[in-house]
Each structure stands twice: as C-alpha cells, then as structure tokens.
C-alpha cells in the first residue's frame, strides 16, 4: 500500500510538472497555432539564470529568473515570430525549431556544452514524512505550485479582460482582431505567460537534478508536446489533462518495467502515447476546431 501511495505521489508530481510545461506550450499554441519548440530553451535558460544568480537569496533569484525568462520569451516573439504570424503551421514550427537551435547553441557558445552544478537552497532536497510516506520538499513545491498556477489561470481566463481576449483570439484570431483585440498585446502576453510557466518548470526540474546542460530543454519540451498532443491541440484543459496522463503513464512504466528494461522508460511511454493516438487521433479532450473551415 505504501509503495503504491509512493508511486501515486510520484505520478502526481511528475504529472504536475508536465502539466505546467504543457500549459506553457498550449497557451501559445492556442493563440498563434505555434507549437513552440523554443519553450524547451526557455526552460534551459531558466536553469542557467538560476546557476548565475545562485549567489542571491533564493526568493530574489527565483523572482528575477521568472522575469528574465518571460522577457526572453517575449523577445523571441518580437524578433522571430512576429514577422511570421500569418505563415502556416509548418513554417512556424520550423521557425521555432530554428530559434531553439539558436538559443541552445548561443549558450554553448557562451558557457560551453559541459554540464554545470547549480547550488540550491538547502531546503529543497529535504523530505518530510506524511503518514509514513517520504515526500520530498520539491514534490510538495511542485504540487502546490501547480495547484496555485491552475487556479490563477482559471481566474485569469474566466475573469480578466486580457484572459477573455486571449480565449477569443484562440477561438478565431482574425475575428478577435476585428472586434478590437490588439493582436500584438495578446500574443506578447501569451509568450510572457509561457515563459513564466517554462521558468517554473526549470526551477522545479533544476531543484531535482541540480545540474544544467545546454540540451536539458529537449526532454521536457518533448514531454510537453506529447502531453499537448494527446490532450487535444489548442485546448488548455486538454493540455493540463495530457500532462497528468503522461506523468501517470511514465510512473506506471517505471513501476511495471523490469530493471533490464527500465532504461527504455521514455521509449515505452512515448509508444503508449502513440497508441492512445490510434484510438483518439483528435486527442483526449477536443473541443476547438483545428481544421480550417472551408
């Protein structure tokens, strides 16, 4: 029973992490129909900022980190994606791939490709016991943060004016523009939010691994993409659900696979996800039209 609960906590934690990453990708996809590969690099840059600001007290460092990554996200939009806003999905996807390669190799150019150790505040690696379960502080942080972020997003999208505009833009960008939504503002905010999400992911992820490498963004972005896809593209609830589903599958694989197969965990997870897509090609939660109207 305890083992099962332990796995359950792991699954929820991982699910939260993937849900955060998927929401960041999903928000931009909703507004711009851009599956932003570069979001992985936002995560990576967030970790490098943590590494560079480690001399500051952690609340200040992490706040600065959030602001900086949001800024980087907005900058990439301004420099690379704005001129492509009317391009088709494939072009945007390629552009985001190019931005991702650019940012990744820029970091290689500046800091080299060697992994670096990130000094962390002492509390993150402790664990507390609840009803006989050992729960790491990082896991607790992840779960609490995700709950807060999800609630904040719900309030934002239901109540705030900007949130409403964003939903309208996600539904029909051109129509939203015609009724007075300022496109640049909405898209810039979507990128800023996705940058903040990416930075949350990067703080939580780095607190676990305490290392940074220039290629560390790839795995989380891949999981986020996969989560967004099985959740149903262009649907924020779907993105969150997809994140949790992928998290649960991953932990289930970890629990079920014999040790000889455990290095292949991700391979099994992705195969399972593709298998889900056989039965639900449109994703688990699908409400928004992705096909263009004729």
């Amino acid at each position, binding site marked *: 029973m305890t083992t099962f609960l332990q796995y359950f906590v792991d699954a929820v934690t991982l699910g939260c992490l993937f849900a955060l990453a998927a929401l960041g990708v999903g928000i931009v996809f909703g507004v711009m129909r851009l599956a932003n590969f570069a979001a992985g690099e936002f995560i990576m840059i967030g970790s490098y900022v943590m590494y560079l600001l480690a001399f500051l007290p952690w609340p200040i460092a992490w706040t600065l980190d959030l602001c900086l990554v949001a800024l980087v996200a907005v900058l990439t939009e301004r420099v690379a994606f704005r001129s492509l806003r009317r391009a*088709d999905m494939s072009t945007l996807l*390629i552009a985001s791939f190019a931005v991702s*390669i650019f940012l990744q190799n820029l970091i290689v150019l500046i800091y080299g490709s060697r992994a670096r150790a990130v000094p962390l505040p002492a509390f993150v690696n402790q664990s507390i016991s609840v009803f006989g379960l050992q729960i790491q502080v990082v896991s607790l942080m992840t779960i609490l943060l995700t709950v807060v972020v999800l609630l904040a997003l719900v309030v934002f999208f239901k109540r705030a004016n900007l949130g409403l505009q964003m939903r309208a833009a996600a539904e029909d960008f051109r129509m939203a523009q015609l009724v007075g939504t300022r496109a640049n503002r909405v898209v810039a905010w979507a990128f800023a939010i996705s940058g903040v999400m990416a930075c949350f992911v990067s703080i939580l992820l780095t607190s676990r691994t305490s290392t940074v490498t220039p290629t560390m963004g790839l795995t989380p972005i891949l999981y986020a993409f996969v989560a967004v896809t099985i959740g149903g593209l262009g649907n924020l609830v779907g993105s969150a659900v997809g994140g949790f589903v992928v998290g649960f599958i991953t932990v289930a694989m970890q629990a079920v696979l014999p040790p000889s197969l455990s290095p292949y965990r991700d391979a099994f997870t992705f195969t399972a996800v593709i298998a889900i897509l056989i039965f639900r090609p449109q994703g688990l939660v699908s409400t928004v039209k992705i096909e263009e109207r004729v």
Partner: protein
Amino acid sequence: MPGWSNKLKSQEFWTAVSPVVGLVVPLCVVVLLGAAFASHSVQRVMITTMLLIILTVGFYVFAGNSGVLSFGHIGFAAIGGYVVGLLTVPITMKAVLLPNLPHAIGKIAMATIPAMIIGLICVAAFAAVVGYPIVRLKGVAPSIALLAMLEVIHQVIANWKSVTGGDSAFVGMPIDSTLFAVLWWTVIVIVVAYLYQISNSGRRLRASREDYEAARSVGIHVTFERYKALILSAAIMGVGGGLYGHYLGSLSPKILYLGLGFLGIEMLIVGGFHSLSGAVTGSVAISMVSELLRRGGDAAFSGGVPGLQEVILAILLLVVLVRMPAGLTGGREANLLALSRLWRRPGRSTPTEESKQMEA
C-alpha cells in the same frame, strides 16, 4: 511497355524528365571532375554533400510532397545505419566488439549492397508498422508524433548495449562509401523520388498538400497517400543512414539525431520546400555554407568554436523563412526546356497555397 519510341519523340516526355536530367547530369559532371582533379579533402566534402542530398531528398519525399513536417525522419536513417552496419561488420569483429549479440546476427556478414537492400526493406517495414497511426493525425500532431518516434528510436539505440554497443561508438563497418558508390545511390534516390512525385499517387498527395479539403472532396484518400509517401521516404532515409555509417566507418546514437535532422530541415527549407530541385539545391547550398564556416572558423579561431556554426545556420534559416519562404528555387523544378527562365529574376517569392488559406 508500348510506344516507347513515340514517347522519346514527344515533347511531354522531355518536359517530364527534364527536372531529373537537370539535377542528375550536373551532379555527375561535378563528381566526375572531382574524381579526376580534386584533392582528397574536396572529394570528402563531395561525399558528405551527396549523403546529405540523399537524406534531404528522403525527407522531402514525405514532407515536401505532403506538406506535413517531420522532425523524426532522421530516426529512420539511424535504423538504416545500424541495421546495415550489423549486417556488414565482419564476424570476427562482432565476436570481439559485441559478444552478447544474438546468435543469428553474430554469424552473418555480407557485402555492402545486399546489406543496404535488406536495410532499406527493414526501415520501410518499420515505417509501415508505426506510420499509419501517425499519418492519421492532423495539423502539427503528426510532426510531434514523429519527433516522439525519433526519441523512442534514439533511446533504444542508446540503451540496447548487446546489439548497438549503446552510447559508445558502433565500429567495424567497411569504409566503402566511396565517391562513386555514393554517386550511384544519389542518382537512384533522385530518380526514384522524381518518379514517385510524378506518379498518380505522388500527384494525389501533392494535391492534398495544396488544398486538403478539396483533395478529399474529389475522393483522394489523403491518409493512405501520406502513408505510402512515408514508407518510401523512410526507405530512402534508410539508404542514407546505411551509406553514412559506411562513410564514417562507425556510428553512435548522437550522430544520426536531431543535429543532422535539423540540417536536413534547413536544407529543404532553404532550397525550397515544395520541389525536388529545392531539396537538392538546398543540400548543396547549405553544405557549402557550412564547409565555408568550418574552414573559416578553423582559420580564425584555430579549431573552430563549438556552437558558432549552428548559431549562424539557425539565423540563416530564420532569415530565409521570413524573407524567402519559398526557398532558393521558389518551389520550381529544374527545367531544361526553358533554361532562360532560370535567368529571369525570381523576385519576391509568391506565398504558398497554405499561407493564402491561413490569411483567408
């Protein structure tokens, strides 16, 4: 086949073959000149360029014809590379390097060409198994699913120590991807890609790229056409991977992975996403740029700077996407009958059908 002599005289026939002649003849001429006069290092550049042409054309057969982007195609090349390698590494070498190899494979060592053929069949079979659920997806979902597939392939190769040697290099393949061996394969690949493109099936797929709904409304089974293109392009990628292994003499999981995949995408976009000539032109152009960067980098910084080349190529790709979305060829094929057209200024490239749709 009846009427071949008539066909040879007809204008349509020559119009039809002119793109492939326009690509293959210059390629052969350059390689023959290179074989006769060029230095060893220039010949090596020619070989890598042709290998990249094969990989880009393989990628184009699916992505260019269907309009569906794939980040995972390099995974097919990885499978091809390792399968061909496993078949050609000498038995004694396998006994030493991969002692835990399954018995049947450990006792096989064959010549390169039959191994390549078996390799491409294996890759095509793999694509046939995993491909259908992927091509059924819509929008960007297939691109993401193919990326996930690449990750699966990569992980299996990197961890399956008894067969692939895991993270360490997989060595011992005979180094026989010579200038001419690669040239013949490149010519075959270009011809096959072109024949597919002008076949009924290829035309149906290209119609669906221009207008998905209209193509469906005239009865084209878009999913099935995409599926066929995926299998063919996977087979070509398999050939490319096999030749790559036999060019380097070794493979490691990192070689046939996202870096090379990115290069392939960049080549196709820079050349022109919608034409075979674009795939070839882009491969040659980017190979030249990257060779210049490599040499220039070596001269300026003695040893090159890690990351610099990728940064510059990424900026180049972004500039092309914004300024010249149809690429160098503008989506046209090489046309011998109207060589004069090549000299007319291409002008600002026309928006593709998809982008017009998005605006509408």
